[in-house]
């Protein structure tokens, strides 16, 4: 197992280098540069723009710029934001907890709802519960999340006034201790629900499908025939086997949730990675964009690795040869 992990880890390195090259090249190809807001303002200003360009090394040839950046990343210096003049890693670091909290909570919520629904729908195929949950799943998958976000905002925040419309904390009052936790939870409710909604719908579909497959297997019939309680059959035997394809999908929803947070963080004014990404994209803040994209790429690689590990835990038959 250890050898396998090391091997996979080493394999990820050329992959990430390849990705970084692609990302670097693609960012350079987008129209408009980081200095667009200072340029075109008359010849008098041109010399000044040139100084700024030089300061950030933007006058170097592209390969040099890439190696400067990549060398920095290797040594823990991810560069400096053109916009704020602050280290990229610091900027990402201070935003990351908010995004992790948001996506983590949404992921757990999605699992907690999707698995029971999927299992129950499969267990009682063609029942009214199955039809209703399937119907809702389709609605959930088809519905644009920003629309749901705006509707929930309209109802629970603007009309009823139960929940705050955005941000992470109530800036009108000083909350401390437990009341600060409650305040944070109140701010997280809507974004987490919206973010979880789409994933829940998708996951529930997968759980149902996988369970249906498994429930028709011989060993399930055998288990039932040997007089095991239905609960044991479902949870102990069927679900465990059904979980393998589900895990693949579930783990890959994590990067998807990360993407979804771009929209949610903007609508709900949450200072996370997603919003940093949007703002940096608008400003062509290449170092920050590259930093976030690389973290995203690494996340997909890690998520796949985690999926592989979870497989072997769920199914003892799966062993990774080294």
């Amino acid at each position, binding site marked *: 197992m250890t050898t396998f992990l090391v091997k996979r880890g080493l394999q990820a390195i050329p992959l990430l280098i390849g990705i970084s090259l692609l990302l670097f090249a693609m960012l350079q190809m987008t*129209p*408009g*540069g980081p200095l*667009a*807001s*200072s*340029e*075109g*303002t*008359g*010849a*008098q*200003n*041109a010399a*000044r723009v040139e*100084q*700024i360009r030089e*300061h950030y090394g933007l006058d170097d040839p592209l390969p040099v710029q890439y190696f400067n950046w990549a060398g920095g990343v290797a040594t823990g210096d991810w560069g*400096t*934001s*053109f*916009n*704020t*003049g*602050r280290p990229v890693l610091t*900027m990402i670091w*201070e*935003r990351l907890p*908010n995004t992790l909290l948001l996506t983590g909570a949404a992921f757990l919520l999605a699992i907690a709802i999707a698995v029971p629904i999927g299992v129950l729908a499969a267990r009682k195929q063609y029942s009214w519960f199955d039809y209703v949950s399937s119907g809702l799943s389709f609605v959930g998958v088809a519905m644009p999340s920003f629309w749901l976000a705006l509707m929930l*905002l309209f109802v629970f925040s*603007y009309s009823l*006034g139960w929940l*705050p*419309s*955005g*941000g*992470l*904390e109530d*800036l*009108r009052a000083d909350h401390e201790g437990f009341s600060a936790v409650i305040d944070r939870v109140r701010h997280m409710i809507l974004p987490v629900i919206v973010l979880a909604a789409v994933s829940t719908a998708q996951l529930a579909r997968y759980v149902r499908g996988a369970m249906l497959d498994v429930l028709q297997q011989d060993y399930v019939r055998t288990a039932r025939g040997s007089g095991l309680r239905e609960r044991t059959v479902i949870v102990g035997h069927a679900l465990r086997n059904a979980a393998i394809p589900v895990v693949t999908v579930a783990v890959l929803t994590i990067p998807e949730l990360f993407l979804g947070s771009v929209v949610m*963080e*903007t*609508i709900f*004014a*949450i*200072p*996370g990675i997603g*919003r*940093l990404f*949007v*703002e940096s994209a608008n*400003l062509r803040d290449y170092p920050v964009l590259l930093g976030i994209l690389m973290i995203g790429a690494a996340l997909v690689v890690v998520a796949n690795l985690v999926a592989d590990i979870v497989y072997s835990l769920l199914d003892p038959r799966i062993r990774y040869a080294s």
Partner: protein
Amino acid sequence: MCGARHGRGEAPGARARRRKALTAALAVGTFALALVGCGGASGEGDGAKTDATGTTNAVAGRPVEGGTALIALVQEPGGMNALFHNQSAPLGLAVWVQEPLFLGRTDGTWEPLLAAEVPTVENGGVTEDGLKVTYRLRPDVTWSDGEPFTAEDLEFTYDVIRNPKSTTIAPTEYNLVRAVRVVDPQTVEVTMKRPNPYYLGLFRQTLPKHKFRSSAVTTEDPQARLPLGTGPFTYTNWETGNKIVLERNEAYWRSDRRPKLDGITLRVTPDAQTAINSFTRGEYDSVFFITAGDMPTLRSAQESGAAIEVSPREGSHVEWLWLNQSDKGSDRPHRVLGDPAIREAIDLAIDRQQIVDEVLDGLGTLTGAFVYSGFARVDRPAAPFDPERANELLDAAGWVRGDDGIRVKDGVRASLRFQTLSGDQTRELYQQVIQQNLEEVGIEVKIQNLPSNLIFGTYDEGGRLARGDYDIVMSREGLARDPIEGGWAAMFTCAEVPGPDNKNGTSYVHWCNEEFDRLVGRAASTLDVEERKDLYEQAVELFATERPALPLYSSTSGYTWSTRMKGVDVDWWDGMWPSAADWWLER
């Protein structure tokens, strides 16, 4: 600030230019005499209205001290030091922390703030030839950390701006400075390379010398992020993406104007629509900043009982139709727009009043002058709506209608692309009105909107305006206290026409007129205010007859705050922000 405010969602290039317009706005310096005409120029009715509001608020109750105002900040800037970050917040809110030497008021006068007096030729502050200006500082000003504010700080600020290793984005008026010399702790003598009618624009922001080790200052410096200042508030904390916290400057040098609020918190809200909705429901005390597009929402919220005050600002940015005068950026005239008859016909064929009344909900005014704001503002009516005359002109010029109703001359079809920033629904509506208007006089218009960077990109990036690769483009420009600010008037001179040898040229319209150059050039180098006004008036007239660009309407933006916040005074140019020291919250 107005300039920057309207930057939201607009082109970077346009924003930068406007940014300069802004600084200019604050900056202009001519003689007080000349400036008397200034503020009134831009919407007198308005000024009166807002003044009234301000006064009413001030006397409505006894001001109480304490409390924190919570303000929604729509665009989070990279840093709050206006010398390093040309975004709307550092520029518009600088006055809370980084005070200027001079404050321009709505009525067009200037009052000294950190300076002891406004230098003029009369008081000996400016030499007769206009080449040397002496700035005298108040002796009692201190930085919020208690250190005295002195002439050394001004000299240091200039050194930083001049240092090639610094990354300041300072206003271009510093380019006219030859040298800065400290005479004594309260006196600075500035020599100019040529007469600079603009000298009050210097030192809008000053850097505290004692906080730096060298004059090479870059964006990485903490002072570029949260600057130390002399103003009524000080920055204490910035949680990026979340909030910027300001507290009362307990050591504020103006002992008569101790800030009433304990502090101001700016809550970063990425979405303007959400920010405004939350504001109207009482979540915030104000919003930085309001655009013309937000006004209908605010007005209807107020009508349905929201506890907010709205102060409209008429006569703000003009929406321009840039008429390309070149054939794809070359020296040849544009195949259609090169004909003066076509340009005049377009001017006469557009029903501007209908656009203001029906599309803009009445939130707009009309003007026919390219100098439509500031001390030299010219009150020139917009072209009348007269499609019949437009048709006559085109007939006389030999543009003959084809079978489809579109005119043709010498095999050239009167068909024009019409472009603006994509995604602006209001603009798309009046684009369609214009399309119909022009179709009625036999000119075909194809609406092909584009993202801002494609329109406003630099010459090397292939920006449509820079390359002259367009027919008609629409954008808002030109709000300035002085037409030289931000290079607004100079933008139409021959020297600014972009080309392979002049990639930084700022002209959109690729128009070159020697008489215009002479008028504008003279106006930028003389200090005689009356002469300058006269020159600009002639330039406006020439511009309006030659029509390299057509003004569509002047937008109405505004300021807004909750009724529980009192003591707000609105200045037409600088808005409600300079009055922050007087704000207080009703309990």
